[in-house]
């Protein structure tokens, strides 16, 4: 088993509409892969299928060598996610949220783990603050603390820095990069910030209309397609996907 995540022939259909159209890719341990694409390209649908909260029409997802459909609970213990649209319950405090999710992931030495995460994500002063009262930057840090509570082997991040100011976004990026360097965690990262993708990802997959159009190193891929930078490549692939097929 070389890959942490292996997706083969994944398809999701809603009636006659194909949201994800036969995609295949794999990610190795310690690799950060960016999942790019315009709105509605199928990024979140793909992430939801990998999380096991959306059943694929066909295809398979293997995580750490095990089939997701057959070993969902076992696999879910070893992965986690953070998404801008999946906030922690606002009526629980920061500490209570981490406690509840620590229990869900059966984390050992949970109280020590929570103390460490609060310190690590600079959330100490908000430990007893209700999540609903946090600013978007603090809330993102809480989401990430929750995402790392079980020390996952696979981390799915759906636009983790959306709506954050550059300083907090940078803090988040650095924190995740350091985490990956220390733990060899595999990360699948979606973002619309091309600067971020270039700075963080080892590889990108470009999705359009549910298909993978392009893949490669975000720093060399634009030149390979005669574009100045990743943003220009993104715009061109989003507007004229057929020219990349």
């Amino acid at each position, binding site marked *: 088993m070389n890959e942490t995540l292996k997706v083969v022939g994944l398809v*999701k259909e809603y009636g006659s509409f194909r949201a994800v159209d036969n995609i295949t890719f794999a990610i190795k341990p310690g690799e950060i892969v960016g999942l790019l694409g315009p709105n509605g390209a199928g990024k979140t649908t793909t992430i939801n299928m990998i999380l096991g909260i959306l*059943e694929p029409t066909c295809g398979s997802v293997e995580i750490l060598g095990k089939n997701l459909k057959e070993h969902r609970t076992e696999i879910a213990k070893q992965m986690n996610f953070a998404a801008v649209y999946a906030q922690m319950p606002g*009526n629980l405090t920061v500490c209570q949220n981490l406690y509840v999710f620590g229990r*869900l*992931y*059966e984390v050992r030495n949970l109280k020590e783990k929570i103390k460490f995460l609060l310190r690590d994500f600079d959330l100490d002063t908000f430990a007893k603050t209700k999540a609903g009262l946090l600013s978007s930057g603090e809330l993102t840090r809480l989401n990430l603390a929750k995402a790392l509570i079980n020390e996952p082997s696979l981390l799915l991040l759906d636009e983790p820095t959306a709506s954050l100011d550059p300083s907090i976004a940078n803090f988040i990026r650095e924190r995740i990069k350091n985490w990956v360097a220390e733990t060899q965690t595999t990360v699948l990262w979606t973002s619309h910030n091309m600067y971020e993708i270039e700075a963080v990802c080892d590889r990108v997959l470009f999705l359009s209309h549910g298909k993978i159009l392009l893949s490669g190193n975000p720093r060399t891929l634009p030149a390979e397609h005669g574009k100045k930078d990743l943003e220009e490549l993104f715009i061109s692939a989003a507007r004229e996907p057929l020219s990349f097929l």
Partner: protein
Amino acid sequence: MKDQYMSISRIYAVFIRQVFLIKSNPTRLVSMFLWIIIDVVLWGFITKYLGSLGRDTFSFVNIILGAIILWGFTTRIEHGIMTTFLEDIWSRNFINYFASPLKIDEYLSGLVVTSIAMGVCGLLLMLLIAGLCFGYNIFRIGLFLLPFLLILFIFGMAMGIFVSALIFRLGPAAEWIGWPIPMVLSVFSGVFYPVSNLPNFLRIFSRVIPASYVFESMRAILASELFSIRIVVYLCIGLALSCAYLLVTYFFFIRVYRYNLKHGTIARFNIE
């Protein structure tokens, strides 16, 4: 190897979340217990007044107040499951929950454990008020109290799971269905009057409601205070019906969950 066993830690997580919610805002206790307190006090005075009219020939307090308390317990169990489920909808927590290792059986067990805690607290509170204010003693029912509570508990669970499944399938706006269900069922359950008071065509509904067997038995026990085989048969029917409903509603909930997994509803549940 597949994960076949339920995790106590994950069931506890679902339960402790509700405890945290109550701790952070004790006014939730008011909504949980206010109505049952009002019911006991109101019916306590009504039965006291009826008792004064009927002299010593009939104990209204024992029969009506007893029924109110037992029905209040059933309602608490149903509302306990439903409100715990609704909390996850209101706080948009489904993605986080179902993307975690939490299994659907564990989630349901967490809802049930929470509702047991709410039901037992509600029952004790009602008994305390009824005892102190109206001299009511539920133990006059004797050992039959245990099967009564068991049947009503299982039936309350089945109602709660059924309503939660409906909301899960139809969206958050369907929440209104859950609140009046106990009141509607009380018409056919013989909580306030014997089933024989209903017109024949309505008695058909009573026959398929487990609670009606409990309340008919309770009246029989308090009227004659005699053990009879008819009561045992009634309780067996009530128990069998409750268990059957629990099983059916459980599978209904699982079916709705699978439907939502297939149609992507979990990820965008709050949109309706």
